């Protein structure tokens, strides 16, 4: 499996949490917020996006984001 570093741009994040749902699906084939390795907190003026240690850098969260707030960087940049 390819691994990607995820570049985040919180300024364009809308707090939709679709990335979190995509991540929980990858890990458990179920949808939850608690099972996501990416955390989006949209309660402030700007969203904050953080990753938990369990992130396997699969890139599914970035694939799910409609707003360009998450971008997969080319795999070789991470694991040459």
């Amino acid at each position, binding site marked *: 499996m390819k691994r990607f570093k995820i570049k985040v741009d919180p300024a364009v994040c*809308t707090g939709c949490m679709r990335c979190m749902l995509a991540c929980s699906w990858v890990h458990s084939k179920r949808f939850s917020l608690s099972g996501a390795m990416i955390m989006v907190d949209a309660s402030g003026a700007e969203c904050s996006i953080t990753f938990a240690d369990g992130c396997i850098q699969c890139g599914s969260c970035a694939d799910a984001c409609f707003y360009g707030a998450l971008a997969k960087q080319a795999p070789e940049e991470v694991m040459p």
Partner: protein
Amino acid sequence: MTINTGFSGAVLHVDLTSGRTSRRSISSETARDFIGGLGLTFRLAVDAVIPGIDPLAPGNPILIGTGPLVGTGIPSSSRVYAVTKLPATNTIGWCGAGGMAFGCNLKYAGYDHIIITGKSDRPVYLDIVDDDVKLRDASGLWGKGVSGTIALIRQRTGGRGGIAAIGQAGENRVLFSMAYIDGVSTMGRGGLGAVMGAKNLKAIAVRGTGHVEVSDAARYKTLAAELAGTIRNYPYLKEWQQLGMLKSFPMVPPELYEKIKKRRIACVSCPFGCKDLVEIPDGPFCGHTASSSSVINLLMPIVYGFSDYREAIRLVSLLDEFGMDMFEFFGIMKFAAELFAQGILPANENDPPIVINSLSSMTAWAEKTAMRKGAGEKLANGFAGLLAKYGDRAAACAPALVKNMHPYTGPDSALPWDLFGTMELGQITEPRGPHVGSGGSPTYFAKRPLDLFPRHLERMGVPKEAIPRILSANAGDKPGLNVGTLLAYSHRWFSTLGSLGICARAQVNRFYNLELCSALYQAVTGLPTTPEQLRLRAWRVWSLYKMLNVRENAGLNTDTVPQRWVTRPGFREYVSEEPLEQRQVQQMISAYYREQGWNVETGAPEPVTLKRLGLNSLFT
């Protein structure tokens, strides 16, 4: 059999009087028959609502529901519905909101619905964390505005989860007070806030650490990927994401919007993010931030004569803080100004003059109304209260009203559409009062050529055989549109989307069709569902809604046409653009009832309709 895919499978019952809570499961048959979300909430209301109940009495329940797709990541599956008897109209109404976090957290906590009954003897908020359900003391929140309440609760919850809260207007039972979901989406302009306030219920906070499962993962994945792909390829996606509702209603130039925009806010899993966080960039309110269900709402006072957009934003955030509907507020203010001018409402030296386009006057009156101070005490009772108190003299100077509420669109209203399409007619036949949310159809866009209609109608689930009835010629060989007949299907399509949990706003709605909805529903819930079956269930849902209101004696008798709408310059007919006549609207209403299989004299669903829909045994 209970159900646990798509659905969480349970209803949380909360009795505020005794403080007792319980969890009851939902049978898969009931879930299937009423789809879920909006439809299932109506079904639960059949048993929970005591017919004839006073909306502000402890016995009036609040039912909250969220659909089987909510929390699954399907685009724009975010909707949360409340059903209660609304004080502004005295009818059973749905109140809907897009949920940023509320709906999905409710699902992850293990519930599709909450039924709240009774009244607490002191201010409380309902705090749900999975199975741990508590009524917590809200004395420190009582008297606070919406954002203040949410901020304090978030301090306790660490910012996680969803919150529905009321402001001071709800506490003080203002008839047009609302609940606010996650501080951004509004819910229930007919007085859901007042119903919560009357129960001493300041807020509902919910956090769920559980999950939602889907029944057929492979099928789900294919459908979800196709849909996401279609949306990504939509040529106007970027523009929607940048402009939000300004795209369909350009109230201010895009350059100005760029100046005030802090960020867009999206409901859970929505690609369009039509909600807004803005900041006033200069002037006396420099640095003031406001979040809203749409920037259009924040700017709406411009339509009422405000010349400075910054003052408009300031006023609407104040109304949002108190928790009052802006449209109804302005309607009431204009009416009150007239009542004062005529000497019908006695002037009080402590009450400043009402000046509709003045921030200081409107600020003072917003506070008086929300707090029931001075003449605000009377204005807080809405049109219904003022008309009941001042009788015929007041009625003579009232604006166009439907079910004692101020319509969104029409000759005396804020939204300037004057062609009479389904949303406009729907304001009359909608049991909850003049709302446009359920009446969407291709007439949403004025002057859309009729030859583009069939494609949209098929998408909305209109059966092929009904299309000629909708697009039949009237008056000779001119092309025609039977708005009343079409509205029956607008309501069924709204029932479909609302029951699944999908947002019905035009930018979202366009990507869904009946086939996709039934396929998604089946994949997620595991309940076998053909498009034909879903179509029937949606008709059942809206007819059940009607029956709930017929039981409250609100059949056809409350569907009155405001005279102002048919007095020139009033509404114009959608196709011919000729001035609309009373007779034509009455014909549309009859056509609507006929198409629904409801009696054109009384408004009640016909026995044969109830039998076909399997609703006959519910109301015996």
